[in-house]
Each structure stands twice: as C-alpha cells, then as structure tokens.
C-alpha cells in the first residue's frame, strides 16, 4: 500500500508518498492563491492509495478530498522521528507559524508552544525583511552570516522591525549587519519558545526556514546544543503525515 501525506502550508504545499517505509515520491509547489488547486495538482501527479492531510489547509483537504487530518504539530513530531529517532525537542519555523514541541522518549507530543496571530519570528518575517534590504530570500542567510558584527533589532513585530530597519539604513548601517540582527531577533523568539516547552536533548529544526544557514548558526551559538536539520526540512510535515497514514 502507498501512504501519502500532504502538508498544505501558507507558503508551499508538500507531498510525500511512502511504500514499506521508503519514500517513493515527493513534490513541493508554491501555495499561491489556490491551495486547493495546487494540492489537487500534486495529488493527481502521484500514485497513492490513501492520504492524510496536515497544515493550515488541512480542513479544506478534508472537505474536498475526504482526507482525514492531523495537526502540523503531530505531523512534525512524527516526521522528525524518521531521521532523528531520539529527538525530544522540535523547532519548526514555517511560512506563518513558529512551533516549539516537546516529545516523550516514545515520540508522543507532551507540550507545545505556537505563535499566535502575528507573523513575528516566522518565515514571512524573514521574507519581508530580505526584500526590504534588497537580498534574494535564498541568499539572505548566507549574506547575514558574512557580517562580523550585528545591528541590534529589538522588535520582533514585523511592522515595528521594519521601522527599526529603516532607521538603521538611514544611519548608514551595513545591510549585512542589519540582516544578522534580524536573524538574531528570530532566534531569540524561538529560544524563548523552546525554553517554555523545556529543552531536553538535541533539537531538531524543521520547516523551510531551517535551510537558512545564519539562523542555524545563531541558534547553535545561543542554545549551545546540537541542532539537527533533516535532509529536506520543509518536507518534515508531509513525511510525518505519510508515516501516520501508513501506521493508521
């Protein structure tokens, strides 16, 4: 049997299909303005027997594809354990959500923290700031990492941070140093969340933002802990959903 997991996120839709615990297919596409159409497109291009949906668009999937659902939190917790079998703490930074999740030895979720309505400290925040500073998003982390010093950005609110960035630019600050300061503000917020759910062992870092080298570097420095990033961190939710589908 082929078990599929589809993760309908705010930024991208991810699909993973498993057979006998092996990934036989995976795909990712921008969510754009039509998550339902994009999800259907991905599902139509793959062969699978049953599907489990997660991500903020999961309810829509339930409605239109009759797919059962799990939350992103459970999906990420499961997905992480595929490659990192002992991990008990998960940090997931996606397009509009940041989550810190604490797991039991057996991998069950015991506690989680999640940002509320605002996009502070999420992928969206970094995207807006990269564009303000004239960096392509893919290059934002690498550029920030090259700065020796960093500009302090104290606000974690996207709107207020934008004004801080504007005034730093006006003062003639180096844009890489501003970028590094912005990354640090995300790390501070993520660290606070991780500490609230308790930090027990090595931390797995998932979601699209885990591809950002500067964030990973600063997080390691700040936590003084081993941070593990799965091979395809943005696929973790879809992989978790597929694993849960296979186990159902």
């Amino acid at each position: 049997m082929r078990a599929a997991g589809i993760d309908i996120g705010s930024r991208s839709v991810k699909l993973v299909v498993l057979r006998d615990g092996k990934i036989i297919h995976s795909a990712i596409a921008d969510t754009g303005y039509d998550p339902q159409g994009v999800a259907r497109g991905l599902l139509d291009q793959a062969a699978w027997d049953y599907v489990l949906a997660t991500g903020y668009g999961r309810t829509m999937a339930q409605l239109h594809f009759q797919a059962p659902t799990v939350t992103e939190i459970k999906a990420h917790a499961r997905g992480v354990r595929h490659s990192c079998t002992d991990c008990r703490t998960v940090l997931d930074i996606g397009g509009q959500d940041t989550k810190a999740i604490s797991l039991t030895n057996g991998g069950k979720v015991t506690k989680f923290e999640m940002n509320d309505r605002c996009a502070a400290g999420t992928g969206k925040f970094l995207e807006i700031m990269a564009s303000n500073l004239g960096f392509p998003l893919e290059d934002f982390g690498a550029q920030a990492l090259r700065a020796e010093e960093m500009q302090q950005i104290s606000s974690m609110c996207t709107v207020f941070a934008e004004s801080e960035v504007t005034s730093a630019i006006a003062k003639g600050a180096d844009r890489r140093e501003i970028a590094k300061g912005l990354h640090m503000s995300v790390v501070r917020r993520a660290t606070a969340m991780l500490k609230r759910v308790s930090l027990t062992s090595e931390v797995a870092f998932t979601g699209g933002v885990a591809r950002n080298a500067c964030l990973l570097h600063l997080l390691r420095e700040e936590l003084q802990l081993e941070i593990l990033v799965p091979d395809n961190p943005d696929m973790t939710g879809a992989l978790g959903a597929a694993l849960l589908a296979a186990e159902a």
Partner: protein
Amino acid sequence: MSDENRRMWSELGLNLRAHDQLLSVLSNAYQDIYLSQQNRPESTSYFDDVMSEIHGQRIQELMREKQQGRKIVGSYCVFVPEEIVQAANATLVGLCSGADFAEEEVEKYLPRNTCSLIKSSLGFKLGRVCPFLEGSDMIVGENTCDGKKKFYETLSDLVPNMYVMDLPQMKSQQGRQMLRSEFYRFLEAMQDLTGFQVDATALRNGIRMVNEKRKAIHRLQSLRTADPAPISGLDALLANQIFLYEDPRRFAREVHKICDELEQRIERGEGVFPANAPRILVSGCPMAVPNWKVPHIVESAGAVIVGEESCVGERGNRNTTEEEGESLEELMEAVVDRYFGIDCAIFTPNPDRTEHILDMAKRYRADGVIHYGLQFCQPYLMESFGVEKSLEDKGIPVLRLETDYSQEDSGQLQTRVEAFLELLK
C-alpha cells in the same frame, strides 16, 4: 421583529439600524453555533426561546416591572450582590459585553491595549445597542482590575446613573471589613433608589430567590460529571450566561426541567458526544453572550467541555448564601461571607482559585484544562503561568490560550486546540 419591540427600543433611545444589524449577527451566530449541534437535549429549546427574545420579551418584562414601580440595576460583575438588589425591590441584570461593537468610537476613549470585554462594554454604550443598559435605573461598576476602574470613569460621563463599588484586593480581615462596609453603602444606595426599606424578611427572601437559581445551576453542573457528558459545554455556558439576566424564578424552573431530562439521559448512558470524547475544563476570563468562540472551536474538534472555572461559570455561581440569620445584620454578614469567597484574580495572593481549578479538574474528570485569557487582561494572564504549573505538577495537561473577540485568529486557535486534543489521546 414586532412593532411593539421596535417602539420600545426607540423609546429606550437605541440606534435602531445598528441594533438590527447586531440582532442579525447574533441570530446567525446562534444558528451556526448552537442550532447546528447534534444530540442536544430537547429541553434546551428553552435556551433558544430566551436567546431569540434576548432584547425583546425579556426587555418588555423589565419595562413592565418598571411600570409597577420596581427598579432595574445593571452590572458588569459577579461581585454585585443580587440578594441586596432583590431585597430592595429591584431586578439585577448583567450588561452587554461579549462582542466587538463601534470599535472606532471606542478607541476615542480607550487605548487599543484594553481587553475586549471592557472595549465591548463601552462599544455597546457608544453604539446605543444594549437595551439592558439603556433601561437601567442604576449602573453599578466595581473596582476589580485597573482597566475596569478607569473605564467606569469614562462611562460615568456617558450615563446619568453610575454607582461605583469599591472592592478589597486581599482576603484579610481588613479586606472583609471593607467589603462589608461597601455592601452596607450599597444597601443604602439601593434603598435610596427604590424608596424601599430593606428588613430581615426582605433580605431573606432575596437570598432565597437567588439561592434557588444557584441551586438549579449547581444541579446542572453536577450532572456534567457523568461520562459521557449529557449536555454540551456550549449549552452549559449558555445557561451560565443567561443566569445573569433572565428572570430568576423562570430560570430555576426551566433549568430543573433540563436537569430532569439530563438525568434520564445519564440513566440511558446517552451523551451529547461519544463516550471517548476528551473532557475539557475551561478556566480563566469570563465569556459573556455572544462570546462562544473558543468553546465552539473546542467542541467542533470533538471534545466536550465539562466545566467552566469562570465568573460566567462556577467561580461566579458556586456558593449559596446562608439563609438562617434572624436579623438584617446577621443576613448581611452571610451575604458578605458569600461574596468574599469569590476567588477573582484581582485578589493577591489568590491560592483558592488554583485549588478550585484542581478540584474541578478532578470532580469533572477532565482530561485537560484550557486556560482562556483575554488579551490584555493582566490579572488572569499573569495567574495563567502559576495555574499551568500547578496543574502540570499534578500531571494534568494544560493549554494556555490568549485571544480576543475578533475571528482573525480562529485558524491558529483551531490548530492549537486540535494539537492539544491529539496529545490527550
């Protein structure tokens, strides 16, 4: 809407157009949230009737009481002693505070970072859409949190009949003494308002009447300890909400009828949700009509709410007042004792509230607790950290939510609630 209602609203000075919009939003929300529920006990049709006439028949009744010489007293808090109001030949009603209204107007008076409940209270006044408020002969404010204290200063410029009751902040002898003297001052004010001299008989009758409606809701609450729960948390919340403005005698009678039906359901092992549905206790800030947002999300996700540790819930209604005193003085002491037991977060320290939450979690066999905090409500948000720790020390999972009356965070709340239910399994 009947012409009679429209005439009444117009005489009360309501903004009819805005009021029509409010009623239509309310009716749609009720339809979507309440009437869509499965397996509702039949006798809850009483709630449907009350809600459909929330600003109609009930206001007509109050206006008739006024014509017969009774006074109407409006309040925003469960610290206002209903026994004294009843004894002085007046009727107490809770005032509208459960939905955003006239938000732009409100921001001319209050800072943005004021909780939804206070903003709503002012919005209903500025928008002229609360017939309870417009029909009140006296509006009683109480010094609970700083936000409410300062809000009553604003409100007193907008209404002709504001009365502010001071409240203690510590459960000390001096604190009790202060509440006692404030209740005596309130008794005087009520007598001045109605011209009715309160004696022991009148106060005893007032106490009995209020106790009767409390006993009815206590019975309802005790039936929710059954597994599967015989009534939804949404319906039980509604009972607690209308408790604050419905005719007390009719409320007691109708709630007992609902309890009769619930007892039969329990006997048959019939629940409103399947027997394995996770059981949730909600604790924290009050939810006034029509603030059904979080309970709706929780119960739509397949869990059942079995108790409310809230002013609109067990914190507000849990103790009855001793009826046995002979003299007016003895009965007044009993009233003071009853209200001094309310474990509101304005008190410091406030260990009784944590004890009560732990006790409720056990009594109602809750699998988890959701702490409901209104954004910018300092007292409850601050207590939520200690409450969370006390519960987790006992192995009870907790989800702390912080939200307001808007719907924009529904998606995120839904994810958090569903993830919380997943971890309870």
